[in-house]
């Protein structure tokens, strides 16, 4: 379904994606890595939004040569949702429906699927974050594409919204869709992904499963550490070296830890004379359905 062959993308001197190759047939695949690891760039290259070296194929269709056709097979939810704010919800989805050559009935069905029907006359800028995300999901599902690509689909959502999105995606997966998503939340990955690609500085450093990444998946918690002084990327590197799954997003360091050893990263950091000011245990996504 999704096939990448030595995809390389440089922005000036920095190499954002450095010869990534992988092949994925069915089910959900997650991209895991800290900010700047190249997740977003890789996704954009896969969709042919950015010109890059190497080649990408979706359902066997070369993205660069026949980008239009390839993208018709992909529903995409971007990281930052940007709509024409003045537009009304109904107009927005109608526009995307016409872009994807999808009938009004299908648009209505997609809207109903995310239970946004009835809100057509609302202006997009007046929608809540969750509603916007659902709108994006509805747009991604227009025309029932076999592949759905999401770039941090839950980053702007509260726990309820996140739960809803994960739930929807899981049911899509059950319908047989191929899902590729980037995330920095272990719980999401555990509950959704069949396979995880760990990205670091534009390369795949591990190609594994959530269980391979976090052996005690049921016991995993995500904690957020707030440091004193030390730059977060440095601390993240130390923790990564110690085998923790780390994500740093500018407002604290998110670390996946076994449920009963929540303090372990703190002691690791202490050994490197990095002081932790505060610790937050992030609420849990229900992962009990992960295996179903």
């Amino acid at each position, binding site marked *: 379904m999704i096939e990448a062959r030595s995809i390389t993308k440089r922005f000036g001197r920095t190499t954002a994606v450095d010869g990534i190759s992988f092949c994925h047939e069915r089910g959900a695949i997650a991209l895991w890595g800290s900010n700047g690891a190249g997740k977003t760039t890789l996704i954009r290259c896969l969709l042919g939004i950015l010109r890059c070296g190497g080649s990408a194929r979706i359902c066997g269709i070369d993205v660069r040569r026949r980008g239009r056709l390839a993208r018709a097979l992909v529903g995409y939810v971007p990281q930052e949702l940007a709509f024409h704010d003045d537009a009304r919800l109904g107009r927005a989805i109608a526009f995307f429906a016409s872009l994807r050559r999808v009938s*009004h*009935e299908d*648009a209505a069905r997609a809207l109903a699927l995310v239970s946004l029907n009835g809100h057509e006359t609302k202006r997009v800028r007046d929608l809540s974050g969750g509603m916007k995300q659902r709108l994006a999901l509805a747009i991604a599902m227009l025309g029932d594409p076999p592949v759905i690509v999401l770039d941090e689909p839950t980053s702007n959502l509260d726990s309820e919204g996140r739960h809803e999105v994960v739930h929807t995606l899981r049911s899509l997966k059950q319908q047989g869709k191929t899902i590729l998503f980037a995330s920095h939340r272990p719980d999401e990955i555990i509950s959704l992904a069949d396979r995880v690609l760990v990205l670091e500085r534009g390369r795949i450093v591990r190609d594994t499963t959530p269980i391979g990444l976090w052996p005690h998946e049921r016991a995993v918690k995500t904690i957020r550490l707030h440091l004193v002084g030390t730059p977060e990327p440095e601390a993240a590197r130390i923790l990564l070296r110690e085998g923790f799954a780390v994500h740093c997003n500018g407002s604290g360091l998110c670390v996946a830890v076994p449920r009963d050893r929540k303090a372990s990263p703190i002691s690791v950091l202490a050994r490197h004379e990095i002081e932790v000011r505060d610790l937050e245990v992030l609420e849990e996504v229900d992962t009990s359905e992960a295996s179903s």
Partner: protein
Amino acid sequence: MRRDLPIILLLAWLLAPSWAAGGPVQDLIDRARPGETVIVPAGHHREHLKIDKPITLDGHDAATIDGGGEGIVIEITAPDVTIRNLRITGSGSTVSGEPCAIRALAGPVVIEHNTIDDCLFGIDLRESPGAIVRDNTIIGKDLEEARRGDAIRLWWCHESTVERNRVRRARDLVFWYSEGLTIRENRVEDSRYGLHFMYSHHTVLSRNDLRRNAVGIYLMYSNDITLEHNTMIANRGASGYGIGLKDCDNIIVRDNAMLANRVGIYIDNSPSSVDATGLLEGNTIADNGTGILATPNTHDNVFTHNALIENEEQAAAHGRGTLHLNSFSRDGVGNFWSDYPAFDGDNDGIGDLPYEPRSLFHSLLSAEPNLRIFLHSPAQQAIEFTARVVPELRPEPVLVDPAPLVDPPAMPEGPRDGRRAPMLALGSALILVAGGLGGVLTHGQIRTPTYRRDAQ
């Protein structure tokens, strides 16, 4: 070489004796006694005629004399000859020898009601005083302007009358060394100089209509001439003057209309003699590129009661000069200027402030005529605006009218199209285009789609 040349030569040899002996019409002329009227039989006569006695040649509007594209068609060598109601065609077309339809070498003669076409020169009168040329229609050969001949030429023909002739596509109507002429109600179109005077004095030109020529009326070295009630429209050729005056003394230009010419009236060193004057009174000078254009040495012309309306440039002097040696009012009455911001506190019909045009762009134009290409562009407005803001940049006024008129005099009506329908149709068509485009491009987007029905 052409294959049929021998045949042509043979024909020429066969026909030549008949010319020498004269054709049927020439025979009639030869047999006529002085004072008789020769009726030219109806039909097409390929002949060249020579008239050497005072007779009248009348074609009754049914006869054509055709010179066959060679030489002079009718040559008159005796006085008191009248030629009327003929169609004359087919003179030679090389300039040498100046082939023409009618040439008179004696006078007086009367040439009236003839139609002349396909002739290099039309009516060429040499030393034929007292001639009358009227109601003729003359259409020149289809040649470029430089190779055409004059439609009517008078050479030493004092006291002659040229009236109600219609001329198209010729070179000039030209008058050499002829005095006391009456030139009226002629209409000249698409020619070079509509009416052209060379060293011809003491004449009145009135009610002539001159359109689309290089120059409407061009007077050169001719004195004491009055131009009255003439109309000059759209004379825009190489010179493009409605009226041009070169070295002429005591000219009166009164109640004429100069409209949409390149230059309304062009004055080149007129008057040229000391004590001579010029008077321009009651003329309507509208829609021209330049209303009044003069060489800087032009002096002692009086402009009064003229209306200068919407000329791109109302008045200018060549080479950055001014028109200050002329006066723009007489007895406290100036001219109407359409760009004069009228202010008349005492309500006497005379503006309270003098009219002083100071256009920086036009002053630049007189220094560098090539800049005229930028006419009608925002850059021109920018220059004028700058000059208004920075007074140091304002040029000297090209003229001062101390008593400008506040109300425009009556204007002649233009070629109006009083119908509203076409313009209204155009307006509606434009709205339809807009509406149609809007319809196509907003198709299905006017209403916000709702899906409630489907959701149930």
